[in-house]
């Protein structure tokens, strides 16, 4: 399945590699003008929102996890928060912290995978992480080690790294003892050192020039770097709760894609993910992570998408730091979960998936069955922005040789760590209203 020979100035990548899921890329240039940029998603649709209807609300965390094998925890977290909001349940204290810890694990795992095996090879000129390992064994082993540390958190808390089984509406099925968490401590200390090195290492990569003026959208919490909670804020002054999300964001189906695009009503494309989080929450990072970011030459704002690799490394460092804090403060709660009783209600929530804002909304009936579900994953929110980036990148790099331009375009896409599996959960409910 090789790329077709492009005619004239057409860049076409039939199958993007080193992204999660199946997607392609199509760019049409005439003279010095870019006519068309399409991020083509042909990962088959899987209709999650459709078949969530009629399922019991308690099944939502397990079912939605299956939207994405790369960030299942994010889906579980958004699902339980949305449902708890619907049912008026507060989950605080140690249970809340355990959820945060679990999420840290997924961030570390997912970011380390992207930085090491998917993104770094672009900068160093290798087709993939495994070939890169031949000449950069240390960097790859370090990345894999970090990934493993993240996975171990998820495994201890969730039972397994992919589609953990221990998350339920109201808390967990079983909470760990202190002794169970203890072995993680040593590993995370080592991981934290590795993350520091990773920040330094990524900072030394060569970054193409590209300063973009995005509208960044992220969660923001009064005291914490955002994971599970916060208001939705943007660099242009948006400040809303998750319940208001659909008043401000709209989705459209693009003809070339099996995913829906999300847009901010009345405004241009926007960006979610590490860059957005970092830029709007810099001061909430742990001192160690802030310092490492500064030392890596990142200011409190970073607008070059290529540098997202450094920002991801900083977030790994933060997540290790935060996980260590959470473990050291952990006291097992009396009960593993808060009792949740169904009633007719609806609720929404956003959490910060590794790739950015993940929105869930549910309406449930008296017997606990789901009447309506809506899910907006990060990649469908970023799709427009990715296309925008490609447009400006290609415009300013038309002088590049064709192969090089194509490779760079792919890299532009990978800057976002787009998760195409997520993007194709496919949305149904908006359409129904039409």
């Amino acid at each position, binding site marked *: 399945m090789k790329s077709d020979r492009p005619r004239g100035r057409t860049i076409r990548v039939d199958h993007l590699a080193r992204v999660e899921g199946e997607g392609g890329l199509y760019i049409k240039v005439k003279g010095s003008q870019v006519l068309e940029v399409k991020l083509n998603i042909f990962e088959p649709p899987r209709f999650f929102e459709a078949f969530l209807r009629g399922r019991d609300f308690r099944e939502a965390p397990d079912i939605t996890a299956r939207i994405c094998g790369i960030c*299942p925890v994010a889906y579980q977290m958004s699902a339980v928060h949305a449902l708890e909001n619907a049912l008026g349940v507060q989950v605080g204290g140690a249970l809340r912290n355990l959820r945060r810890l679990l999420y840290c694990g997924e961030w570390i795992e997912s970011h380390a995978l992207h930085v090491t095996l998917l993104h770094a090879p672009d900068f160093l000129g290798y087709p993939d992480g495994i070939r890169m390992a031949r000449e950069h064994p240390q960097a790859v082993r370090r990345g894999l080690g970090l990934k*493993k540390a993240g996975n171990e958190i998820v495994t201890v808390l969730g*039972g*397994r790294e992919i589609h953990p089984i221990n998350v*339920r509406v109201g808390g967990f099925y079983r909470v760990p003892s202190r002794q169970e968490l203890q072995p993680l401590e040593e590993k995370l200390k080592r991981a934290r050192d590795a993350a520091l090195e990773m920040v330094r290492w990524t900072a030394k990569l060569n970054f193409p020039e590209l300063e973009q003026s995005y509208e960044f959208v992220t969660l923001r919490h009064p005291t914490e770097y955002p994971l599970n909670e916060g208001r939705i804020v943007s660099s242009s002054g948006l400040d809303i709760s998750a319940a208001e999300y659909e008043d401000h964001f709209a989705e459209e189906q693009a003809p070339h894609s099996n995913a829906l695009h999300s847009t901010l009503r009345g405004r241009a494309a926007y960006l979610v993910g590490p860059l957005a989080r970092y830029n709007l929450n810099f001061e909430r990072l742990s001192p160690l992570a802030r310092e490492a970011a500064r030392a890596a030459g990142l200011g409190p704002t970073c607008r070059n998408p290529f540098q997202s690799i450094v920002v991801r490394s900083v977030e790994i460092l933060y997540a290790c730091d935060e996980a260590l804090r959470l473990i050291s403060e952990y006291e097992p709660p009396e009960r593993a979960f808060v009792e949740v009783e169904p009633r007719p209600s609806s609720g929404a929530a956003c959490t910060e998936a590794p790739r950015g804002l993940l929105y869930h909304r549910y309406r449930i009936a008296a017997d606990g069955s789901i009447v309506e579900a809506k899910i907006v994953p990060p990649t469908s929110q970023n799709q427009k922005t990715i296309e925008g980036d490609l447009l400006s990148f290609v415009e300013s790099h038309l002088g590049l040789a064709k192969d090089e331009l194509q490779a760079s375009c792919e890299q532009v896409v990978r800057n976002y760590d787009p998760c195409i599996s997520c993007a194709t959960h496919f949305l149904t409910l908006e359409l129904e209203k039409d």
Partner: protein
Amino acid sequence: MKSAATRPRRRKPTLAIWKFASCDGCQLSLLDCEDELLDLANEVEIAHFREATPVTLRGPYDVSLVDGSITTPQDAERVLAVRRVSKFLVTLGACATAGGIQALRNFKDVKEFASLVYARPEYIQTLEKSTAISSHIRVDFELRGCPVNKYQLLEVIRAFLHGRKPNIPTYSVCMECKRRGNVCVMVAQGIPCLGPVTQDGCGGALCPSYQRGCYGCFGPMETPNTASLSAWWRRLGARDEDLVRAFRAFNAGAEAFRKESEAHEK
């Protein structure tokens, strides 16, 4: 099992990974083998693995790992091509072996469902049913799980490399639950559990180990007596709709589970 060991070990065996409709989790399991990944890359030539590399070596491939179910006409074509270039073909996970969670569509009136869902259905092609790889092509080995257990995945690869029968049991989850010394959640707490009819393999009766009932993500065990288990679930308070949901989840398309779910549908 035909294996790498049947021929002289001059060339490294080639490994290709293919993706159809899925969450990607099963092939990600390969990248989750952090300790073994680089060693594995020394023992086999990773010849096609889009999620990790754009490099594709020419087929035919000694081993193909196939993740995902068939849901579009294009994929139904593509999977035939995959079979043609694969000597030994292993399906990974519930999607590939039973149609996955997306097989829930198989129980709806699909035409109505489709027009309900799409604003512009002309852009999207999808088949009426999400089907297992084995309903399209011959499959040499099926690895269960939603997702697969990475240790089982490694075991299949190792077994293939050394001409061994993989140690992948087909008996119940209860076997491993008891070996681990778990207290049965169904007997001691009355929590409905699918363990007795579900195939072991998740790495130690995970759900019961975490104080919840098994929800069947490894699909039916070798001789599942679902009717008897359903009768007991009823005594524990399960209703028909609970039984339908329980059997109609990640392995909804697996024959034994499908039939049992249908038996409780009003």
